[in-house]
């Protein structure tokens, strides 16, 4: 078997691409390689780009990447698109707007389908970020699915989350669900040359100021204006992200963020592995079917079955 971990560390695009496929497929072969890569992760800075559909996230990702490349930084991009719940298929179209990055050896881009995972990301997105990190990318951009406002999982992975809003798409503060405004470390008003941009800018700014006066926050999210199509405001946006990074690093918040991430990730991995093992065993020996039958007939309750299975597993 090829030593993918070693090849990734040596910069092999092919090895990284294959390892990512395994992660997406939840192929157990990935584990061993990830185990060896882990020590080499944690170097990259992770930026999340999220917002409504049509907000211009791909174009923004393209322009930000270009700006970062000009600064000499290498970039990994993970662009997530939804899978169809009916067919399981997906059209991943983010490369269209990022065509000019394809031949840049300093950029690795991967399109991912959500495969039924909610929250705006694919299940394996976090792992893919690690592979790109180990591959040596300085900055990793995660572009989320743009389907609504519940897709806020990106904050679990990103050091800086940019929330992209545009005038004329119903992106008004009133329409924001509780909690969405809070995910932003940086606000981006894209398509800022459109009618309604000034109003949206004013609304967001006012809201940010109100929040700041109500409760003490160490970081006040800046509100940036861009016209991504015309490459306007991108430099300022990158600077705002850098300022946030500096803040995180100097205040110790970055370390705290990453500690929290490690904790969640570890618990999640344990959860996933326990689940898989128990499920596999229950399925293999037919016990699950018997339990389900009993539960359906109300001879057994799912609660007691759960306690029973877990208790027995713990004993072993």
């Amino acid at each position, binding site marked *: 078997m090829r030593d993918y971990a070693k090849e990734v560390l040596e910069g092999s695009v092919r090895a990284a691409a294959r390892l990512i496929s395994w992660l997406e497929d939840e192929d157990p072969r990935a584990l061993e390689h990830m185990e060896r890569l882990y020590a080499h992760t944690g170097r990259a800075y992770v930026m999340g780009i999220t917002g409504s559909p*049509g907000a211009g996230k791909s*174009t923004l990702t*393209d322009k930000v990447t270009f700006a970062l490349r000009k600064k000499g930084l290498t970039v990994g991009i993970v662009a997530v698109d939804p899978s169809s719940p009916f067919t399981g298929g997906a*059209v991943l*179209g983010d490369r*269209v*707007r990022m*065509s*000019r990055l394809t031949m840049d050896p300093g950029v690795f881009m991967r399109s991912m389908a959500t495969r039924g995972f909610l929250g705006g990301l694919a299940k394996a997105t976090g792992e893919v970020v690690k592979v790109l990190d180990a591959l040596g990318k300085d900055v990793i951009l995660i572009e989320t699915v743009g389907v609504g406002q519940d897709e806020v999982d990106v904050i679990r992975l990103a050091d800086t989350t940019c929330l992209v809003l545009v005038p*004329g798409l119903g992106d008004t503060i009133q329409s924001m669900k509780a909690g969405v405004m809070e995910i932003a470390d940086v606000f981006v008003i894209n398509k800022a040359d*459109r*009618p309604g941009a000034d109003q949206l800018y004013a609304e967001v700014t006012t809201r940010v100021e109100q929040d700041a006066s109500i409760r003490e926050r160490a970081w006040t999210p800046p509100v940036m204006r861009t016209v991504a*199509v*015309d*490459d306007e405001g991108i430099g300022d946006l990158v600077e705002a992200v850098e300022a946030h990074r500096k803040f995180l690093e100097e205040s110790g918040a970055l370390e705290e963020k990453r500690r929290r991430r490690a904790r969640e990730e570890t618990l999640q991995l344990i959860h996933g592995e326990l689940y898989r093992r128990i499920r596999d065993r229950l399925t293999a020996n037919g016990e699950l079917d018997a339990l389900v039958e009993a539960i359906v007939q109300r001879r057994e309750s799912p609660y007691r079955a759960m306690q029973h299975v877990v208790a027995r597993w713990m004993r072993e």
Partner: protein
Amino acid sequence: MYDDKELERIRTGKENWEKTTLGKALSRFPERKPVFTSISGMPVERLYTPLDTADLDYEKDLGYPGQYPFTRGVQPTMYRGRFWTMRQYAGFGNARESNARYRYLLEQGQTGLSVAFDLPTQAGYDSDHPLSMGEVGKVGVAIDSLDDMKILFDGIPLDKVTTSMTINAPATVLLAMYLAIAEEQGVSFDKVGGTVQNDILKEIICRGQYIFPPKPSMRLTVDLIDYCFKNVPRWNTISISGYHIREAGSTAAQEMAFTIANGIAYVKACVDRGLAVDSFAPRLSFFFNAFTNVLEEVAKFRAGRRVWARILKERFGASNPRSMMMRYHVQTGGVTLTAQQPLNNIVRVALQAYAAALGGCQSLHTNSFDEALCLPTQEAVTVALRTQQIVAEESGATDTIDPLAGSYFVEAMTDKIEAEIEEYIQKIDAMGGTLAAIEQGYIQKEIQDSAYRFQKEIESGERVYVGINKYTMEEPEPTNLLKVDMKVGEIEAAKLKKLRAERDQTRWKAALDKLREVSLSDENVMPAVIDAVKARATIGEICDVWRDVFGEYRPKEFV
């Protein structure tokens, strides 16, 4: 058109017929399918009667040929005066070969030239650019510099022919070359006639030959319109094209609706520039498709003329009737042709040409039957031209004006398509106009959904396509296909090398510097472009200046 009493009698009569004669027949012989639809998916009823045209106000809605709202045609005598211009889109390989094809077509009785450019020229790249690899001379003639253009029109007097150039993003450059040649031939600009397509919006929507972002692209479009209005009065400055929208999969009504929406955007851009609507609107022209469903096509053309006239008059306050006329070129539907049993395509093209004639086109290109297989051969091109000559000379469609007017079905269909066009235009207005609708992907998505629906109908067998899903047969391998010499690219590249070495470097550099300066200002770019082509700047070099100044466009693609 009928009074209430008469309508009531017809209503009763129809009900009776449905209960008796029809009812009996249906009980014994059911119809072929539960619902009938046009190729665009528009429902088609069993029978149309005066009841379906009861709301029609003849004077207001139909009127007379050459008069507002031009439903019945834009000229008072239509084809009784003269036939449409027979214009076959041609051009392949290098300028020398294309020039020979043009001379041949003119000898055969063709009355106007139509130039197809290869894709590098359309995308503003020189023949030796890496993206031009394999493409040089493939779908049209390769033009890099004024020298190529001179060969292309060698021996063709520009005051005697009109030339239609299918060129969009770099339209200013090709027009500048054409004008430079006219000047050399001693033909003054006011004697030069023709058309440039110059329709960047549909490139962005569906045809893909864009270069610059929408805003600077629109600026170049308006610069050309403005310049011609002042200097080349006989030039048709834009050909607002539904053809490619239809090819991309739209319905007939969508083709007309999105084209008119684009037209509105151009008129608005010119008005915003400060041009009076009656100064430039008479030189706007359109370009549409014609599919095989003759009646639907005729209704589409009639509805389009009516809607456009009303928009120009009511929305833009035009007062010159010529501003309100939708004049258009038609090309028969490329995507309707099949690679299977290619000779069947001759029949399709004949019906489509017939539809164009009954619909009142001003010029027509008929496709060659072998187009789904390869680039057209000389034989196929000749048959195509003969097809429209037969429609003109033998079919009788040209003897009276708008002969299908008054057909209950055609009038009802015309109204229905008109209503659909208006609904789309309202939607697009509400989004903030065509540019915003394109940016949101709305128009692209509508077109793709129609294409998808059509494909599904074909695959389920719900819609029959002869030779594709019914009446198929084993066929011998086609022979006698035209192939472009792969060497064209190398020859063009060598020519470019020589040009770059031999041209006056000082003059060349000064011309490009001036172009950059003008492009950064609000000045009209046309004079600077003309100077640049005369200084032997290539199309790629001129577009590179603009790529630098304006940036490049990447579209929003929806699948």
